[in-house]
Structures are given as C-alpha cells and as structure tokens.
C-alpha cells in the first residue's frame, strides 16, 4: 500500500464531520458503545477493555460552520469548546454513549458541566488527574479515580471490565504507542520522507479508528514511507509546541513546512504518545497505568512542574533528541495553559540559545500568509545563524 492511499483514507476520516466511520463501527453490533474524549489525555485502555471505542473529539476544524456554538461563548474564549458544542447540537455526536473531559484547563472543565446539562442522557465525566507525583499521594488518588472511571464505564457497556481485559488493551496500546514513536522517529531522522501533514493525518486517524486498525495503518505507512523516494529540501528543523488542545488547521501545518521548516516534533496529538514507554502488562493494570502517568509520561502546560529547573526540560530534551534548530510556539488564541506557560518556556529556550518564534492561531484561521512569512523569516534566520 502506498503512503498516498493511506493518507487518502486518513484525509477522508479527517474531513468527515459526521464521523461515518465511527457510526459504521457502532452499527455493526447493537451492543457497541462509543466514548468521546477531549484533549489532552485519557486512559483509552479502560474504554477499550469494555469493548467500547474511544473517540477523540478535537473540535470542528476549519470546515465546520459554527452557528449555535458561538451563542454559548464570549468572544474571548478559545474556539474548541464552541465547535464541540456545535458538533453536539447539530447531532453530529448523537451516537456517543459517553464523553470524558480531561483536566486540562477551566474551559474544558466547565464544558463538562455544560455537557451534563445539555446532554443529560450521556455518561459524562470530568476526568481528573494527579498533579502530585508521589505514589502514595497522587498515585493512590489516581488509582481510585481510575476505579471510579472503570465503574462508570461498566455501567455504560453493561459488562464487567476485568483486569485481564485491561492488560490486553494495554498491550495493544503499547503497540500503538511504539508505532507512533516509530513514525515520529522516522520523521525526525528523514523529515523529507515523512511530511508533517501526513504524520498529522495519521495521528488524527488514530482518534477515530479502533486501535487494532490504527496499528495496522501505522505499520503499513512506515513500510511504505521507508520505501518512498521524496526530494530532500533545504529546510531547517523545528519543534512545534503549544498546540496540544485546539488543533491548528491542516493548512497551517502545511504552511510551516512550505515556509522552509521541517517539523521534527510536535504536541498535536499527545494522547497517542502520552506514555513515554510501554505500560507494564503484568500485575494490577490500574496501578500500572497510574505509575506510567506519574513517572513516565509526556510533559505539557496542563501539568504541574515540581521544580523550576524542570520547566521546559521536556521541550529542551525533544529539541536535543530530534536535532531541532528552533522552536515554534504555536498556541490557540485565549489558551490559558499554553499562553501562561509560554514565557517560562521562552526563557528556557533563550538560556540554551534555542531560536524561537511565537504566534497564535484558531482552529478556523483562514489567513496563512502572515504565518508563512513569519515561519519563512524564522527559517532564513536559523540558516543564517547556523552559517555564522
């Protein structure tokens, strides 16, 4: 299978605002259930272990006309909650049996309560995570939260979600994360072979497909991409940071690359890469998920950093590991986590002489010219800088 045909499938999934693939999955058997989740992380393994499909809800992108959603939000609030409400009110999410709202910011937190009022028939849960990373404090709290989540999901699917089933799901998601990491690794090594728009679409597909299908898709893509011969361009290598919730339009990702920047790492779809290594499949699965969360997960602005010298370290490590020459801070307008954290990250990059630029976007940004110009100038300056 060629990369083109895989990406064609991904594009169709990405563009389909009625989520027909998920509807079709559900229609195959009347006991099937679908649980939606928002960024940035939920333990999909537990949903999967209940025989249900976890589905990422990432807003409406730039193709959805938001009519009702704007009536729920003031102009100074980001776009993703309003387009998510639009999806809900226009019955595009009417097949969902439940919705999880992770602890990421106060907008998504409050949206969880709005959802309870607006869609009272769904299972709705605000999914809290520990900001205390001690096993006996934050860990115990989190394991109990996971137990509550498991009980809630059992009510939805009508089955017991056994430890064994969760262990098996963890194994499948480990496979998925390994394949995802492999795609990222390949892109960092040979970015001309793996355009970022393709990586993005592949990762988005993982928000809708059953993990088994996504695993296969990633394996096929990796095999095909390695074989393909694509021209190497004189681009600089950059990391994109701050786009972990409301998603940039695909055109923005393409524009960055067209402006002369290879994206060698990003935080677009962190749920796919949240656990940095395999979660153990031995012993108590909830404890294993908790332990990985506490000690072996990605960093993002929605997390508390226990010491100042750790702030920005994850980003700095990514810059070093991928051999990036700069960072583009690209955050949604009005995004509290990303924009509050940015000055600290900027300082950290400056301390280590990592060039960086910042801009804001919205999921429905149409004008790419300014971003292309900014990214282009940045790419030129990096090249100049590295030549001197």
């Amino acid at each position: 299978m060629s990369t083109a045909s895989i990406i064609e499938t991904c594009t169709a999934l990405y563009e389909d605002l009625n989520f027909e693939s998920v509807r079709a999955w559900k229609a195959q058997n009347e006991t099937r259930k679908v649980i939606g989740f928002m960024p940035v992380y939920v333990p999909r393994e537990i949903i999967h272990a209940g025989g249900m499909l976890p589905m990422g809800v990432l807003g409406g992108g730039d193709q959805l006309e938001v009519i009702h959603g704007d009536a729920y939000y003031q102009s100074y609030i980001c776009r993703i909650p309003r387009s998510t409400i639009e999806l809900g009110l226009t019955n595009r999410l009417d097949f969902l049996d439940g919705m999880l709202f992770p602890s990421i910011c106060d907008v998504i937190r409050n949206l969880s309560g709005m959802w309870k009022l607006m869609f009272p028939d769904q299972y709705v849960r605000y999914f809290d995570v520990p900001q205390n990373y001690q096993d006996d404090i934050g860990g115990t709290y989190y394991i109990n939260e996971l137990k509550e989540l498991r009980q809630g999901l059992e009510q939805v699917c009508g089955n017991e979600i056994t430890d064994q089933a969760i262990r098996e799901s963890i194994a499948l998601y480990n496979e998925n994360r390994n394949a995802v990491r492999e795609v990222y690794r390949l892109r960092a090594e040979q970015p001309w072979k793996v355009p970022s728009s393709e990586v993005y679409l592949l990762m988005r597909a993982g928000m809708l497909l059953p993990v088994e299908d996504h695993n296969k898709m990633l394996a096929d893509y990796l095999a095909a991409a390695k074989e393909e011969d694509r021209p190497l361009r004189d681009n600089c290598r950059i990391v994109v940071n701050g786009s972990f919730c409301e998603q940039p339009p695909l055109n923005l990702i393409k524009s960055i690359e067209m402006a002369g920047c290879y994206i060698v790492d990003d935080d677009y779809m962190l749920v796919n890469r949240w656990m940095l290594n395999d979660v153990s499949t031995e012993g108590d699965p909830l404890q294993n998920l908790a332990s990985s969360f506490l000690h072996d997960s990605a960093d993002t602005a929605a997390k508390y950093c226990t010491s100042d010298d750790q702030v920005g370290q994850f980003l700095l490590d990514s810059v070093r590991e991928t051999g990036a020459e700069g960072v583009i801070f690209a955050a949604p307008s009005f995004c509290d986590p990303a924009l509050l954290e940015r000055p600290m990250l900027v300082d950290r990059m400056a301390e280590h002489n990592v060039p960086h630029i910042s801009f804001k976007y919205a999921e429905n940004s149409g004008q790419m010219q300014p971003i292309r110009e900014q990214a282009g100038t940045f790419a030129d300056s990096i090249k100049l800088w590295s030549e001197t």
Partner: protein
Amino acid sequence: MNATAAQTEVIKESSMLKQKSMIAANYDALTSTADTGRKVASTFVPGNLNELIMCFDMLNNLPEINAINNGMRKKSGAMIMDAEKRGHSEDVCTYVKADIGLMSKGNMAPNGKPLPPPDLLLLSYTGCFTFMKWFELLRHEYGCETVMLQVPYEGDGKVTKNMRDFVVKQLKQEVIPALERVSGVKFDIDRLREYLKQSAEAEDNLVWVLESAKNVRSPIDAYFGGVYYIGPIFTAFRGTKDAVEYYEILRGEIEQRLQKGQGPITPEGDMAEEKYRLVVEGPPNWTSFRDFWKMFYDDGAVVVASTYTKVGGVYDLGFRHDPDHPIESLADYCLGCYTNRNLPQRVDLLEKYVNEYQADGLLINSIKSCNSFSAGQLLIMREIEKRTGKPGAFIETDLVDPRYFSAANVKNRLESYFQMIDQRRKSKSAA
C-alpha cells in the same frame, strides 16, 4: 450634613475603620519582615489556609488582593502593560500580569514600602487552573520553595472520600512539613483548633450579614458592599480575634439598619429606594469599581446575592471550619469553594438565590480574564431564565485591566435591563 447622614457615617465607620486598621497592620507586618524576621507565605483566596499559616507564625500575602488594591488605585493598567511587554500574553488573566508587573515595579505595598519576596509559595490549586501556572511563574522569578496542594474539582457535583483523603494526605505529608521547614516552627494541632473555632464564629456572623439581604428592603448590597464584608474572612484574618470582632461589629450595624428599615450604605450615603433586586454572578470590575456601583444605586438596584462573595467559601450552604476535625475541615473548605463546584451546582445555587432572595433576575458580569468563572456563563444565564422565569442580563468587563471597562456600554446594558424588568412587572400586573 443632616442627622441621619451623620449617623450613617458613624455606623459605617465603625466596621470599616476596624477593617482598615486590620489591613494596614497586616501590610505593616508584611513590609517589616526584614526587621522582625517573620516569614511570608503567598497563597490564593480560594483555598486560603490562613489558620494553618498562622500556626507557623507566618504572614499571609495574597497576590489577588494586591492586584485588586492596585486595580482600585488605578495602578494596575500600567503593570499589566509592563508584563505584556515582557512577553506575557494579552489573552491571560490580568491578575497574573498585574502581579508580575507589580514585582517589576518594586513590589510596593499600599503603605509605600516594598513587599518582601515570599519565603513559601503555597500553591492552593482550588477552582482555577491559572493558579498553577501563576505560581510557577512566581517561582521562576523568586526561586523560592513552592508547595502544591491539589484540590480536585467537584466534576460530579460532590466531594468523594477519595478527593477528601487526597487533600488531607497532601496537607499532612506535604503542606505542613513545608510550613514547618520554612518557618522553623513545629506544628501544633491545638493551636489550629483554636483558630478554627474563631473562624467558625466569624463565619456565622458573615452568613447572617449576607442573608440579611433576604429582607425586602435589603439592608446591604451583597456584591459591591459584599466585597468589603468578605474581606477579613477571605484574606489574612480568618481565624483571628480581629475577624471575630469585625463580624460582631458588622452584624450589629446591619441589625440596626434592619430595625430602622434602612437600605444599603453606598459611597454617597444611604441608598434611597430599592427598585430592583438582583443576583449577580461573576467578580466585579475593580478599576472602575465606584463608577460601576454608582450605575446600580443611582437606579435603585440592589444586589441581594452574589457568587463572587462565595469564592473564598460558600458558608451560606452550611460549611463551617470545625475544630473537632481540623485538617479534614480545611480539606472540605478547599473542596467547597464556589469555583471548585461544577456548572450544574453553580446553576442550582443561582436558582436558589433568585428564588430565596426574591430577586428580579440574574445579572452576569463576565470577566474577560477569568475562564474559571466565565466559560459557560451564557448557558448559566439561559438555564436560570428557564428555571425561574426571571430575565437575565449579560455584561462584559475585566478585573483589573481598565482597557476592558467601557462605562457607556455597561450603563446602556444595565438601563435596558432595568427597563426590561419594569416591563415584565407591568405585563404581570396587567395579567
């Protein structure tokens, strides 16, 4: 000055003077730590652990209150712009930027002396995501010890045992040891019990004062006046004798007003007629606080209940600090603050206020800075209109950024709201 006005002044001044001197003494204590050697903890109003901080002889500095002070003294605008010039986004909470701007301008307290850098950042992460990053930013500047107390959100509209245990454990294993370490004072739980007893006494009187607004012809304004009434309990005085005395005096004053059938005191004296009774959701604007208030009392509008006066504790729903369960009660306190309650709970509370306080409707002052309060308020308004049949109105301002207070817009919006209430009344009486 006629006799009534003179009397009003005296009544007003007794509690206000008391509060003023308490605040001044606290700022004096904060700005003289170089001489006294006392240690300072910075923390937030929701989830404020004042009694615990006092157990370690430490002083409590609340950056939100400093931002409010600078907002009211019209100094915050320049501070915010300064922080924005230094790379802080125009989109984020202006309390944070006012605080960071204040720091770069020498951290001056209202007494004209510099505030000391905190010895401990007590990050009470209750009801607002911004708190977490705010103190990370301060830690980045000060490089001081920081201890985090994560207070889980009431996502399902209740406090579970797991949530409570988590907070208690953090208090015992993280927060208290950090306070001991920084202060050098050993924790004494009996000292905490004593303070909590005093907190509960003051809280009883605060609730009485706030609920006095259930009287038709309310003796208080529970928003503009309310922000003064909550001052001591929400800040560095909960648990002190001073706070107990303050609330006794205040209650006495309000009792007298009730007996005399008087309305609220405004900056221009007694309010004349009570024409409209409103419930208000959201914090006030501080940079034009007086002008904002005037738009209400000039038109005879009294705020009879507000949610902002519950950010530091929803005492009117029955919670009291409990000396018999000291640490657990601190946990319950943090868990129950208004912005830590989910949206359906907030709607329920507002509905109760509109009904129990016989309000004419709900006014939302939506704050640009504050996603914690603001995200979802338009739905809140619709729900309240639906459930109570009373009209709602929506205005938009900011806390301490003067660029987002448009007096003309706010006034127009308020006037049409009052007209709407009049029309509803007319059509009701005609029916």
